């Protein structure tokens, strides 16, 4: 581990413990069943991916884990306690950080401020101490800024970017800043919603390596939604496939790749064999 790696407090769990468990989770919007009776577990230290065609319910599933939606049915257990029905900020405080599919930075705030906002739940300063500017508050603020700068360094943006408004950053840098902001919440579980969307192949490769580093260096557990199969197959320990809100397959990347249901969901019936061969070829080409 290099010296500049910011420390994220370990929760004391050992690799292999179940960190997040979803049982029979269902979300209905009126008559539409967006997510249907999904069981899902992720264990400490895993990188897991959720894939599926557009509209399969992946983001809805994410939004239930992060508290934006409340599941219609089913239970969600994180680190031993139920999180279904909690508000997003409570879930963040419990230790789940996230990024968004369409980047949702605070566009007019600086890069540094974006990261500092991520630290909100980890800072203690209350109203009266802030108005009185007690030594504790000053100290906390100084430390928070130093840590935010470290995080900017860690995600590869560098400290020089700190005073830049988020909206002025390049697309790839904005994605990195979103990760830095999510890391600032000190998560145990990090949810990345299509982290490589809109990136060119070079940036995608960089992001893939980076996600692996997050797990290896910070000991994070990571759950991805991803469309880029090369990324998914390259870094995932487990892959779950959603189609029309239902989980149709789950397993190692290799198992999922050869599952007939998955191929059918993605490519429709017929032509499946041919496409599967292509897919395998591409993934071999990349590993080579």
């Amino acid at each position: 581990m290099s010296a500049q790696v910011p420390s994220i407090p370990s929760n004391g769990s050992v690799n292999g413990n179940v960190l997040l468990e979803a049982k029979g989770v269902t979300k209905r919007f009126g008559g539409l069943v967006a997510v249907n009776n999904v069981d899902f577990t992720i264990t400490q230290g895993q990188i897991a991916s959720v894939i599926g065609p557009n509209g399969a319910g992946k983001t809805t599933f994410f939004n239930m884990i992060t508290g934006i939606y409340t599941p219609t049915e089913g239970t969600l257990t994180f680190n031993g306690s139920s999180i279904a029905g909690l508000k997003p900020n409570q879930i963040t405080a419990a230790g789940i950080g996230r990024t968004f599919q369409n980047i949702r930075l605070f566009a007019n705030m600086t890069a540094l401020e974006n990261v500092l906002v991520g630290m909100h739940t980890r800072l203690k300063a209350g109203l009266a101490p802030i108005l009185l500017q007690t030594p504790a508050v000053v100290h906390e603020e100084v430390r928070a800024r130093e840590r935010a700068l470290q995080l900017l360094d860690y995600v590869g943006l560098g400290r020089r970017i700190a005073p830049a408004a988020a909206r002025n950053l390049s697309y790839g840098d904005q994605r990195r800043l979103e990760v830095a902001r999510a890391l600032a919440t000190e998560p145990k579980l990090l949810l990345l919603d299509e982290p490589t969307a809109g990136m060119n192949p070079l940036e995608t490769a960089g992001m893939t390596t980076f996600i692996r580093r997050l797990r290896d260096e910070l000991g994070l557990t990571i759950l991805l939604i991803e469309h880029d199969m090369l990324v998914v197959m390259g870094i995932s320990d487990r892959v779950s496939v959603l189609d029309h809100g239902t989980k149709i397959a789950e397993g190692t990347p290799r198992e999922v790749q050869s599952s007939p249901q998955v191929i059918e969901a993605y490519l429709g019936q017929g032509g499946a064999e041919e496409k599967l061969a292509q897919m395998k070829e591409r993934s071999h080409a990349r590993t080579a």
Partner: protein
Amino acid sequence: MSPAVRTGISAGLLAVVVVLLFGNLSGVVLGLLAGAGAAILLDSRVEWPNRNAAIVGGATAGAVAGLLILVGQFIHDLFLMPLAGQPVATAPGSTLQAGLIAVVLAALAGAAVGAIVTQAERPRQLGLLGLLVAFVILFPFLDQQIQLGWTPTVISVLIYVVLALGLNIVVGYAGLLDLGYAAFFAIGAYTTGLLLSPQIGINWDHPLSFWLVIWIAAAVAGLFGLILGAPTLPLRGDYLAIVTLGFGEIVPIVFRNLTRVEIKEPFTGTCLIGCDKAINLTGGEAGINPISHPWLPLVGQFRTGQDLPWYFLIVAIIALTIFLISRLRNSRLGRAWTAMREDELAASSMGIDIVRTKLLAFAMGATFSGFGGAFFASYISAIFPGVFDFSVSVIILCMVILGGLGNITGVILGGLIIMMSDRLFLPQLATLVKNILNTSVLPTIADPAMKDFVATSVDPSQFRLLLFGLTLVIMMLVRPEGLIPNVRRRAEFHEAEAGAEATVATEAKAPAK
């Protein structure tokens, strides 16, 4: 034309408008302001090679502005005054003298600013702050000396500046459009009125101390900020505005009607409060009167008509307000407000409790208007429900928008511009135009109907709201972000260039793979 001369002219032209209205020695105050203003404006446009160049540039800009003021002074004394039927009170010599003083002061102010802006970051800020503080402290004495009589108006203008600073928290930082902000002003003022008058039976001979009551008023206003904020929590944008508008209307009406308060126990009908005689809590339309004044050792009792203590009190309140608000702004809570304004969902996902953050914004905004309300009640010594109507909320909102949402300096500047125009410049313009009409125009019109029409229709004070509206419309079209939009403007601008280069570089690299 050099940039120094150009900025001098623009600052001078603004000052001349005021000098044309007031004449006499108003050029002295305006000279100082225009000189310093021109130099600051100049600094934002020019990179200085060295300090001497900055001093010379500032002095030039100041002198040019001063010369315009000199010209304005001559026009006022030798042309406008006779036209308005007033004898030329001052000889041309003294007009020249007043003008030259303005030129010298403007040039000196410009040079001083020039010397300060070329310092390093820290002394630069302290220097500019020092200049400002010196001007603020000297202003009432200067005003007395040159018999301008602006201080009472400035005091009432500064009350509105406090309110604008408070509203800026709600609208500027937290992005919650509040159209009923005058309600909290009213609550602060009425709390003060009740506690500092014999209205609810507090002994008039031994009134409570103003220094205690101002904090109570702020706390009560803050509490009502929470209470009135709570029902608006699920609302956004237009709907929030409508509900706050409703609260703004309700509060003065409640104060208007709390004249016969008696509370009965609901089941048995036993009287609990106001049994012998229903309590007249707020005095209805007539309001509460009199309200006692603050007392300080050395200064003694503050009196109506003695402006100095009041002036320094309101300046102190503003200083405290700015001090506290900037601490909030740069804290965890201030960042939460901004994040919530930018993207509520993302903010919530980053751990910010939206409910608490919104309520805190309402409460803090209301607290500062409580300070303003307490000062207002004691200063005017009487309050009526009519003072706190919708137009007050709108004016305060205009001040915030004109100056620049979320920027303390901008809000203060916007507040000063709007309220000074409204309270000082427009009435003076109205008097001047009326005098000119009466002496020089009306006698030349023969037709009585025409005469009547001109006399009634050419009255600038009637166009007050029209001018207001026009200013806002023009502002929204030309500069929607306000006069001073963003402190980090310069840094962001440079980063934008850097960011663009980075993007180009990545794109150039990509195909090479």
